[in-house]
């Protein structure tokens, strides 16, 4: 069974953390992952940096620019991750944009993911229908769960469709925004969280965007199975480097 599915069966609210691979320093990738697991994080999204990350705000974009400047590439990331499963057992997901994967070769990319022990992918600019028509069989061949996004604007019909083809969890974007652009949740989000909970989807939901502290984590996971923190953690890395990751996680849980 895929590590993501196992994790989702645990009776607790899950904390997932995003960080950009090769940031702040090129060889920090594995230390960040190990420290996050030691600090009690349930799942990790490893950001594969891209020059033009459309769905991300300034914090994640500038970490991506820095990581690329540090020399991060798809090849290098797989190289860094080759022994990660000797020390890390929580689910690992690669989050990245489609073009670098396309250039690597989608099948080759998926194969490498399986080899190093990646459990799933989040690719914001790979549309659901293109995935379904062209890439689904490749992902499944290598045991990878592809995670789809929904937003407050996604129609009920489309949410049902996304639920029908999802095999792990649904990434629930908390508001109409890019990453790192809001603080706190208002009535609009609360209503949206409740509306989705009432849909009784077959896949659990994990909320992302706008979660930066214990208060927003608690709000987001009232109905959802878990929450994802990205920009707030990248900011922490910018200031503190790979040390004191536990301090950051302790402020959330």
């Amino acid at each position, binding site marked *: 069974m895929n590590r993501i599915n196992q994790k989702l069966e645990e009776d607790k609210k899950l904390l997932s953390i995003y960080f950009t691979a090769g940031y702040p320093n090129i060889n920090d990738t594995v230390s960040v992952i190990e420290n996050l697991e030691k600090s009690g994080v349930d799942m990790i999204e490893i950001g594969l940096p*891209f*020059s*033009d*990350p*459309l*769905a991300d*705000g*300034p914090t994640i*974009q*500038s970490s991506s*620019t820095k990581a*690329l400047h540090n020399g991060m*590439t*798809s*090849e290098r990331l797989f190289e860094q991750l080759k022994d990660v499963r000797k020390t890390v057992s929580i689910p690992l997901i690669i989050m990245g*944009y*489609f*073009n*670098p*994967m*396309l*250039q*690597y070769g989608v099948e080759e990319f998926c194969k490498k993911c399986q080899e190093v022990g990646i459990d799933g992918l989040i690719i*914001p*600019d*790979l*549309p*659901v229908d*293109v995935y379904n028509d062209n890439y689904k069989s490749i992902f499944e061949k290598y045991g990878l769960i592809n995670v*789809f*996004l*929904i*937003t407050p*604007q*996604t*129609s009920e019909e*489309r949410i049902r469709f996304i639920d029908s083809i999802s095999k792990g969890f649904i990434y629930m*974007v908390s508001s*109409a*925004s*890019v990453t790192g*652009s809001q603080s706190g949740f208002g009535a609009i989000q609360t209503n949206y969280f409740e509306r989705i909970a009432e849909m009784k989807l077959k896949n659990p939901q994990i909320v992302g965007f706008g979660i930066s502290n214990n208060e927003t984590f608690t709000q987001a996971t009232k109905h959802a199975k878990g929450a994802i923190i990205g920009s707030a953690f990248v900011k922490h890395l910018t200031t503190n480097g790979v040390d004191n990751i536990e301090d950051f996680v302790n402020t959330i849980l």
Partner: protein
Amino acid sequence: MKKTYNINEKGYYGEFGGAYIPEMLYPNVEELRQNYLKIMAEPSFQEEFNALLKDYVGRPSPLYFAKRLSEKYNTKIYLKREDLNHTGAHKINNTIGQILMAKRLGKNRIIAETGAGQHGVATATVCALMGIECIVYMGEIDIARQAPNVARMKMLGATVVPALSGSRTLKDATNEAIRDWINNPVDTHYIIGSVVGPHPYPDMVAKFQAVVSEEIKRQLLEKEGTEDPTYLVACVGGGSNAAGTYYHYLDNEAVNIIAVEAAGLGVDSGESAATSVLGKEGIIHGSKTLLMQTHDGQITEPYSISAGLDYPGVGPMHANLYKTGRAEFIAITDDDAMKAGLDLCKLEGIIPAIESSHALAVFEHKIFKPDDIVVLNLSGRGDKDLQNYIDYFKL
């Protein structure tokens, strides 16, 4: 089914196009996709669009027989004078169409990206005309080097927002505009300036620019007794003036198509924008097309002396024209373009935009027959480029 170089029902030109967008953009793009053809077909839309093109833009633009240029190259050269449009280029054809589209979709806020500022000015112009709020994203570096156009946009009431991310040029301005649209999904329409971006943008913009080839057919019939030139020539950055020039001839293979890209300092110099030669298939701004990128799939920064041609991608229509061999692609260096531009000034009394000068340089690179009819889109006028011409020729 008859072979076509136009878009198919799924939003692809051959294998290029589509809508590779984050889910956050899906409702915006889907709303447009479901409505654009319907709205464009409405008689009231057609009426308003055509009236504004005629009375506000000044269409039809002349198809001018360039006698002295023709004598020099011993062929028949016609210039489609898009430089005479209001705001000085073909860009306004698209922004007029899209502002009417935005109104019918009930949007009250417009965003746009701009490189050199031409599309920004054309967007600010139509927003002023309609009394709609206008926000233009422009790379911080471009703002510094295109001060007159920044001033024009401000005079027209637009807010110019600097794009501070990435390389701080056109592609980053486009990223910022897309992010704005993600953050404002309900009330905002994004006026893209070229035949790029996710479906339906390439098709919608091509259809608004198609007025160019519609007029060429009529005007050439009057002057030469045939609707069909031997060659159509246009410069290609994203490719909107070219798309307009080719549109009604795409499937008429008796008409040869030439697309002129910017070679910058030379195709192999590392400072170039010749996407067809240097690009590989990939995804940029929501479209599968040819783009300049590293081995690892990171998008690279192109270079051309012409700010309107230094886009790292190319519209999916043109990627398909290249791949299928329907169009001949020629890359022209800065030097050759500047020389061709100055030549047109001296021979015909027309100061062209540096983008159009690239197209004009084709006559030094390809020999045409005396009875060939060559129609070239003179897509913009050179006023905006005066400082570049001054610096280059030490005027």
